[in-house]
């Protein structure tokens, strides 16, 4: 089983969440909302490129849009391997997190 960095994991999960509408801007917004922290664009693209290299996501090009200065979007989609890996990670994590208290016992 491959391991993912925490960032990669978060990005991959966001892509799954966003379903068909996952591209740079939406992924960043999604993550920023959920974590409550500022994520720079670079912080999104580095893990995205890495995921792509590992074959966990695939991309397709959208049409050019006026809103984007005539440039197109690159949409991301999880590949079956990506889905499989996410499931495995969830499995493993469940085992690791089992019994962890929700509230710290003082």
């Amino acid at each position, binding site marked *: 089983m491959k391991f993912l960095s925490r960032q990669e994991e978060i990005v991959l999960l966001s892509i799954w969440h966003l379903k068909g509408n996952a591209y*740079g801007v939406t992924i960043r917004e999604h993550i920023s909302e959920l974590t409550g922290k500022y994520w720079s*664009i*670079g912080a999104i*693209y580095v893990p995205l490129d890495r995921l792509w290299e590992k074959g966990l996501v695939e991309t397709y090009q959208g049409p050019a849009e006026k809103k*984007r*200065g005539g*440039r*197109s979007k*690159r949409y991301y989609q999880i590949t079956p391997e990506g889905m499989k890996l996410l499931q495995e990670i969830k499995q493993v994590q469940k085992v690791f997190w089992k019994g962890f208290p929700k509230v710290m016992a003082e």
Partner: protein
Amino acid sequence: MRRATDGPPRLAQRLLQRFCGPRNRPIIAGDFAEIHGDLLERRGRTVADLWYWGQVIKSFPAFVRNAFFWSLVMFRNYLIVFGRNFSRHRLVSLINLGGLALGMGCCLLISLWVLDELGYDRFHASAERLVRIESDESYSGTVRHGIGTPIPLAAAMEKEIPEVEYATRFSRFGGLQLAIGETSFFEESVFAADPSFLGMFSFPLFGGNPETALSSPLSILITKRMAEKYFAGADPVGKTIRAENRFDLTVTGVLGNPPANSTLQFDWIVPFVFVESRLQRMPEGWVNAVSTYARLRPGASSAIVAGKIDALVRPHLGPGEKNTYSAMPLTRLHLFFQTGRGLLERAVDYVYVYSLIGLFVLLIACINFTNLSTARSAERAREIGLRKVVGANRGNLIRQFYGEALIIVTAALAIAVGMTALLLPSFNAVTRKQLSWGVLAAPGTLAAMAGIVLLTVLLSGSYPAVFLSRLRPAGILRGNRGAGFGKASFRKALVVAQFAMSILLLIGTFAVLGQTRFLQTADIGFDRDRLILLPLRGDVAKSFEALKTEFSRLPGIGGVTAMSRRPNMIGDFADDADWEGKDPGRRIRVVFASVEYDFVETVGLKLAAGRDFSPDRPAERESGFLVNEEMARLVDRPNALGARLSLLGRQGTIIGVVKNFHFQPLDQKIEPLVLLPAPNANWLGNIVVRLGPGDQGAALAGLKDAWKRVLPGYPCEYFFVNEDFARFYQRENQMGRLLKFFTALAVAIACLGLFGLASFIAEQRTKEIGIRKVLGASVTNIVFDLSKESGLLALAACLPAWPAAYLLTRAWLNGFAYRTNPGWPVFVLAGLAAGAIAFATAGWQSLKAARANPAETLKYE
């Protein structure tokens, strides 16, 4: 900031694009644009733009880190490797450097020359609108092109042709005798011009009003150098100069010296009205007699102006006369329509020839570089292999090798600039240019240098870069040396090319030198040794008879006569001739010259029939003509003697026929010529004196004394006809000398390359030579074996070189009506010389290798 849409700031966009990696470029830019748009909607333009710029600034450090840091690291590595290679093969590297420096130095010198030639007359403020009016006179069958135009043309053009802003006559009229205070002197470089002259050209005027400086007939403008010469620091403006002992001219201004690259060269300018009204009787009507220059209005077409001039002149032409005019741009005059020697020369041909020579020399040097680099490829193959293995792609390697070429070429340029600076004074002396060291920093020169560097890097570095970067690491690293050893056949082809160019230059040099020698030594139909000319200026001509009497009495004088111009350059004064039996429909102009008694004998012409003019037959002074054989042929009678002829309004008969002689430079055919006795002293320009055998110095001293006795107050000047010849063929002489220099250099550079290559090959084959020697080969065997190839390559170079040389020399020689063609021995000799030089160069190097003790060479591992 201007922007087309509501998008982010343009500059910021462009920067951001630059900073992003190429894969993500459009996508990321799109994301940024979208976020920017979002912010724009929610928080306004300022926030959005600020945010965008913030992104740009944030991405900058990473970009710098990626782009520069790593390339700096690699660059340092390239430099180290370059330095190691340079010092490991010091000889070959120095040959490369030296060859390139020599080649580029040549190129630089030639560029300076070419730039100077191309820059003629461009210093005028509106140079592109200045034109010279030129004329074409049609006669039966021939058109004579010249720069003569009608005297009233300039004024008429200014008045009648709206496209003409200014027009001026500008003509030299034979010089003036001038006097400032007590000093009297004669100046030739005196021109007559109209007031418009100062308005249309950009010759600076000091201490005078350009509007009025030429308005009053009794005014004169002088150049700075003349002001310094005759007024020694004092301000000449307002001073009086006496001309021809009759007219008091006031200096109305001092003109800046005409720059060396100006077609118009003058030292004194007087108003044309002065010459016209007081000094000389001008031909009447609309005869083509003076030069006319004009400045057109912006946008005016010179063709239309020329058409309008034709229309202006047409009503004034006599029946049967057909003259047309053209307006030649001033900036093209020097290159295309020079009026030297009384004919039109194309300097641009010499620009092409010299550029070609420069390119050849540079190419030869570049080939050295290419050959030596690829020959060494075996040495570098491992480095290349390793670089590829650790991840260098072809682009990196190509850049590396171009970079190495650039370093060497830049170093060579520094040497070349130094060399050029050192050679500049001698180069000026040969080419008669006045290039100063300042031109080395002129923008044109810097551009030329950049061009030369770029060209050299491309020419010399391309093959090594492409070839070396293509090597396959697997083969090299396995130790398969053969795979990386460069294509020997390609190197051979390049050596052949080098020698072909050298042979071409050699043959060209032989041809040019042969023709120059021919021009100066050819039989021109009269004896030019010990023949001197004394210019008769102004009033001096009136004393010719007295001078002749005095001169004839002196010992060591073989003969004395006088004539309008010079026997070797009679000029192109011509008039319509008519004779018995001439087809009345044909209009034929014939060149004429006026002469004095004893002309035939003094100059040394040979009479084909009849006799010379003689004081014993005074009637012939009014009605006799001497003609040359060409003219006799034109008259076309079994015996031209006694034929009636009329010329210049004189009716007379032909009393003698002289054998043809060259009264024009040898690039022109001998034309029909008529000699007639000078109607008065104004027709005489030079005394011609033949010195006898005996002491030349004493004879000259005698002449000077006699002159002083007759004309105390007038300086005695003289020159030898032979010197005049050298001046005539300056351009050819110059080309001969430059070609000699550049050819020697080209051959030397080619040999340098061959030397490097031979030493390299000898080094490669050290072991082989050792084994051969052990097996019994003699030193001679080995030397011959190693160097015969070089000799053969040089001989093979003859194949392309011969036809090219034949065509090029023929094209150049075709410009001369009389010429020597280089015979086949010249071609063979050039080829053999190249072969021998190549053989010797390679042989010398292989001798060293062949002499080595095999015991030493074979144990080196």
